[in-house]
């Protein structure tokens, strides 16, 4: 069989995390009873008019700047006309002729090393509603809560060659959007969606093959499977001497196969034209400058800083910056406890372990950094044993309790009061006259026996060192 190269370009839709919709004041919150986050504008009522949410432009600009894009400082909205009930006006307000950003790039890293993926354009548009088919009643219902939620569509050049590169690119975009605070990029809630354009060509040839577009990809895993599946399907066709047809295909992740939705011949004519309800947008140099200056530290810079400023190993810096929300938690904790290395240790071991056990996303981790910092400080000051601190942290992680009062209330605080130690020691010695005699007789073996008894009685409230010290003193006294 011949060698083939896979050529992949992506169209990624990212839902922007603005509080209100792109053209009206309705909430963008996910969920909500059907048609409760709606108004005349986002349900396409006659006479209603769109008014652009400036925050959407700001978020799109932030994304464009981070992806090294050129900005169209004079840009417009166009109407994309098509009939479908999820689209209340039967046109989608989008950008075709003058998208807000174009010609950028992002760098991805795979096992093969670093590589640039070029961004063809980024444009703003509105999301559609959701159709629900009621099998029981045999009717379709529509929920317009999502109608008018702002999106940016990020169109890449056909620069990717494998599913590994595609996943790296998507992870890169997701991380970037989260760091910028412009989207939470949750695939399962549909706030990040990707369509894959794929073609294959014989290795070494220049000309691109015929491409297909794959839709309905709901997870990174599905995307990887769909890429492998489509690559194989196209190669099989070519090997059989049959042509690949330019078409849109729908991926079924359960069946791990795809079927054709529509071919190029019946591609729709969207009759794009400038939306006359929305005046062109003028983006000033000053605004772009302002956003550039306010651009938050992105992952790469953070990784660098963690190594230089905190002295963390590259691996740890990488893990801790994978998610912006986790890095924020970490930095706060480090700042509050004044020991970045210790804080990093807790995150690398305990936080990651608990996340994994509970299969949580970093965004779902919600304990107050002060609580972990307090715990770290208590261990530092030997006020709680490392063992107990770990147990207490599990409760902090789950319920975000205040560890100081928790430790106090549950009697886990290390006892510094030697009076109490001696009291317990005397009690144990009285209860065990045999071993005591041996101990006083110089048998080192029973020393451990007494330490063990003490620790058990104290339930970790005293450090082994303190126990040993008290025991030695008592032996001396009794001898």
């Amino acid at each position, binding site marked *: 069989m011949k060698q083939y190269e896979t050529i992949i370009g992506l169209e990624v839709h990212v839902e922007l995390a603005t509080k209100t919709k792109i053209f009206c004041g309705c909430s963008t919150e996910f969920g909500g009873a059907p048609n409760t986050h709606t108004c*005349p504008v986002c*349900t*396409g*009522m*006659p*006479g*209603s*008019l*769109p*008014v*652009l949410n400036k925050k959407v432009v700001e978020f799109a600009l932030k994304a464009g700047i981070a992806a090294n894009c050129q900005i169209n400082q004079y840009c417009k909205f166009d*109407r994309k*006309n098509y*009939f479908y*009930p999820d689209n*209340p*006006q*039967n*046109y989608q307000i989008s950008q075709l002729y003058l998208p807000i950003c174009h010609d950028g790039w992002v760098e991805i890293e795979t096992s093969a090393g670093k590589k640039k993926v070029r961004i063809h354009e980024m444009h703003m548009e509105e999301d559609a509603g959701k159709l629900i088919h009621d099998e029981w009643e045999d009717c379709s219902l*529509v929920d317009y809560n999502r109608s008018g939620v702002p999106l940016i569509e990020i169109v890449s050049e056909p620069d990717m060659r494998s599913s590994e590169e595609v996943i790296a690119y998507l992870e890169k975009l997701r991380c970037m959007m989260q760091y910028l605070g412009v989207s939470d990029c949750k695939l399962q809630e549909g706030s990040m969606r990707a369509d894959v354009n794929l073609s294959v060509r014989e290795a070494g040839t220049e000309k691109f093959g015929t491409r297909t577009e794959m839709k309905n990809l709901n997870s990174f895993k599905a995307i990887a499977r769909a890429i492998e599946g489509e690559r194989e399907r196209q190669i099989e066709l070519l090997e059989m001497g049959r042509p690949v047809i330019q078409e849109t295909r729908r991926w079924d992740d359960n069946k791990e196969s795809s079927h054709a939705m529509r071919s190029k011949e019946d591609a729709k*004519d969207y*009759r*794009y*034209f400038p939306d*006359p*309800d*929305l*005046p062109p947008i003028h983006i000033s140099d000053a605004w772009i400058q302002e956003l550039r200056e306010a651009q938050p530290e992105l992952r790469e810079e953070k990784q660098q800083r963690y190594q230089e400023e905190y002295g963390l190993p590259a691996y740890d810096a990488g893990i801790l910056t994978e998610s912006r929300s986790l890095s924020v938690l970490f930095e706060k904790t480090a700042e509050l406890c004044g020991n970045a290395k210790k804080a990093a240790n807790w995150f690398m071991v305990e936080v990651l372990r608990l996340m994994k056990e509970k299969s949580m996303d970093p965004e779902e981790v919600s304990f107050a950094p002060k609580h972990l910092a307090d715990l770290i400080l208590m261990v530092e000051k030997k006020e709680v044993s490392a063992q107990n601190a770990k147990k207490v942290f599990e409760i902090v992680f789950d319920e975000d309790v205040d560890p100081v009062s928790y430790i106090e209330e549950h009697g886990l605080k290390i006892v510094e009061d030697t009076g109490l130690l001696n009291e317990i020691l005397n009690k144990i010695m009285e209860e065990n006259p045999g071993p005591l005699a041996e101990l006083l007789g110089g048998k080192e073996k029973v020393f451990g026996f007494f330490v063990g008894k003490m620790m058990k009685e104290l339930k970790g409230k005293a450090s082994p060192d303190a126990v040993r010290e008290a025991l030695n003193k008592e032996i001396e006294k009794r001898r």
Partner: protein
Amino acid sequence: MDLEKLTALQLAEKIKQHQISVLDGVKHVFEQIEKKEPKIHAYLDTYKKEAYARAKQVQKGIEDGTYTGPLAGVPIAIKDNICIKGKTTTCASKILENFVPQYNAEVIDRLERAGLVIIGKTNMDEFAMGSTTETSAYGVTRNPWDTEHVPGGSSGGSCAAVAAGETYLALGSDTGGSIRQPSSFCGVTGIKPTYGTVSRYGLVAYASSLDQIGPVGKDVADCAALLEIIAGHDTKDSTSIERQDLNFTKDMEGKLMGMKFGVPKEYLAEGLNPEVKAAFMDALKILSQQGAIVEFFSMKTTEYMIPAYYIIASAEASSNLERFDGVKYGYRAKEYEGLHDMYKKTRTEGFGEEVKRRIMLGSFVLSSGYYDAYYLKALKTKALIKQEFDRAFEKYDVLLAPAAPYTAPKLGESLKDPLAMYLGDIYTVAVNLCGLPGITVPCGMDSAGLPVGIQMIGDCFMEKKILRAAKEYETCRGTFPTAEEGGRKA
């Protein structure tokens, strides 16, 4: 007291002086409606009960100082493409036969704040597409001057209602002449404001870049006062403009002496009915006699105005009317198989011929492969037309034109030849393409006794100039008869 003779401002003044109650004015209007509607059919819906209740409320408001405006207590009719909360808004189309908006158009809120009394919804060409009010799905409106004739369109119901004394004021909308042309045909006054002056929020869109709501009234002062109420920036409409000079009723009095008027020569060429031309020339004479400078100049883009207008308007309309699909509101076909069949049957049954013609025309000019040749070219043509108007306004304060090439046609004549009907919009469409303000004032009659109007066009934001010119012209012209006095008794 002879309530029919009063203008809206006079009525409001008498209400303020306690010579008449708000209810008297409203009752009078409903008497006229009862008397004349069987012949005219200017209204699609009237709100007698609510209007009576509202009249009492406004009366109280005037007395306690809530309503102090110059038109408080005056009855007004609303074109049926303007949304009123809880009131069926059909756009004279079957497809919206049962549509009840849950929101007010911005202009309705403004009228309510000013203490006007809304008495009903007026007939129109379906979705404002037409020049005769004959494309209404709910029957034609007849011209009060001669009921064998059309009132013009698309705001034919609003203009006929004012002409017949069935209201004191009305709101219309003007996309290509839809206020100015029926005002001319019905012998009333109407203004199309500068684009962006009046909020379009709640106006069911025909062609968004051209649509403006405007006043229709018995004279210039009434229209200016109403415009002052409805104009103003609205954050709900992105194309609404923040203007400072909205005191249209101020400084209206002024001499014509020295004002410079320009008349495009091409407007007086072939196609203009000689009697309309004669009435128009008489008006020019009056202006000159008052010391105004009237000059003829060449408007070279004239022949491109109609094509550019119909391409742009139809393109926008084809998209604007997509939302009428039977899914969310309005008419839905009774029997269908599947989604596409539902769309197809609903729209086939719900829209009238003229609307379908424009949707098809608009869809065609926007389709891939034709976009550049038609739509883009029309936009470029529009820019050239605008440049020519800009140059004209460097020389002239106000441009003059007839409102239409002929007086009101007979019922049933126009729709036979849609292309000929489109050509009848020759003097009005450029004003919309360029966003200019325009006013029509009655200036004479043809031999059949049908009114002729003169159109005064100003540069953008120069409403005050055209209002002053129109007001002065009106004074010099003298009283114009009402339809009842001057019209042919039907």
